[in-house]
């Protein structure tokens, strides 16, 4: 692996601005959906999180350069998200199925 001397990827200014503009537009869309469009729950939360995930993907792939980077770094991020979901799932398996919420909680 150390044999080949790979060039670092350099994004053009246009590419970076395109990603930035997409993030700005998605922010506006999130606010418009949340404030001016009546989406019945739980789809309002699902919409907000979906847009946030698209934004997160853009930042991770093109600002943090994972798209052009060694795949191992992308795997680390995916594993972090996977373990985060595991942590939430196991916690919710407890908290969602209690007969009584602990009073002081």
């Amino acid at each position, binding site marked *: 692996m*150390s044999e080949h*001397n*790979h060039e*670092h990827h*350099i*994004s053009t*200014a246009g590419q*970076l*601005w395109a*990603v*930035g503009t997409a*993030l*700005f537009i998605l*922010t506006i869309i*999130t*606010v418009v959906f*949340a*404030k001016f469009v009546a989406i019945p*729950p739980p789809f*309002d939360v699902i919409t*907000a*999180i979906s*847009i*946030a995930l698209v*934004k*997160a993907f853009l*930042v*991770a792939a093109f*600002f*943090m350069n994972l798209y052009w*980077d*060694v795949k*191992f*770094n992308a795997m*680390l*991020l995916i*594993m*972090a*998200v996977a*373990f*985060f979901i595991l*942590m*939430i799932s196991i*916690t*919710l398996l407890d*908290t*969602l199925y209690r007969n009584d*919420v602990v009073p002081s*909680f």
Partner: protein
Amino acid sequence: MANHSTSTPTHVHHHFVDGDQQFDTAKLGMWIFLVNEILFFGGLFCAYIVYRAWYPELFQMAALELNTFWGAVNTVVLIGSSLTVAMAIRSAQKDQMKGLKINLLITIALAVVFMVIKGFEYSHKFHLGIFPGEFYTYEGLEHPKAAIFFSIYYMLTGVHALHVLIGIGLIYWIYLRAKRGEFSSDYYTPVEITGLYWHLVDLIWIFLFPLLYLIE
């Protein structure tokens, strides 16, 4: 094995084969740190999810106390700062040292704007008596668990704001090193690594904004 016959640049430590290996290693280390950060914030997000599942009506009521406009402005400010960090790294890669320094300074300015807006938001809430936990004295919310929403709010945004402050310090340090002429297209690892950290701070806020400010 290591080939030291070609001239090794001064920034390459002796235990690395070459500059590229050192760069990739530093980046790997940073990503492992970012994994820690994600799971660290993950615990706080987990508290948010558990309490939102228990008291959905509280989250709808309490979110109205947060100012969507300033939350949205801060989102735009942080995305803008992520863009300037990306531009700073591009400048370093292209040996444009002036562009590097200017982009770092704009990033710091945007981060300061973020903190000032956050400061106004906090002081407005303190004025109303909206403090975390047992110090909560606000009476405008008719909910026995009202303080819990704001404890979670202060933990999430407070820890995030702490990251922004540390980020300002780091980027200023990178700026000083850029000013001393330490970076070039051959060596800009600290710029890249600090950029990764700053993008993560942006990433966390991308989720905090809809989850805290945009509950209808």
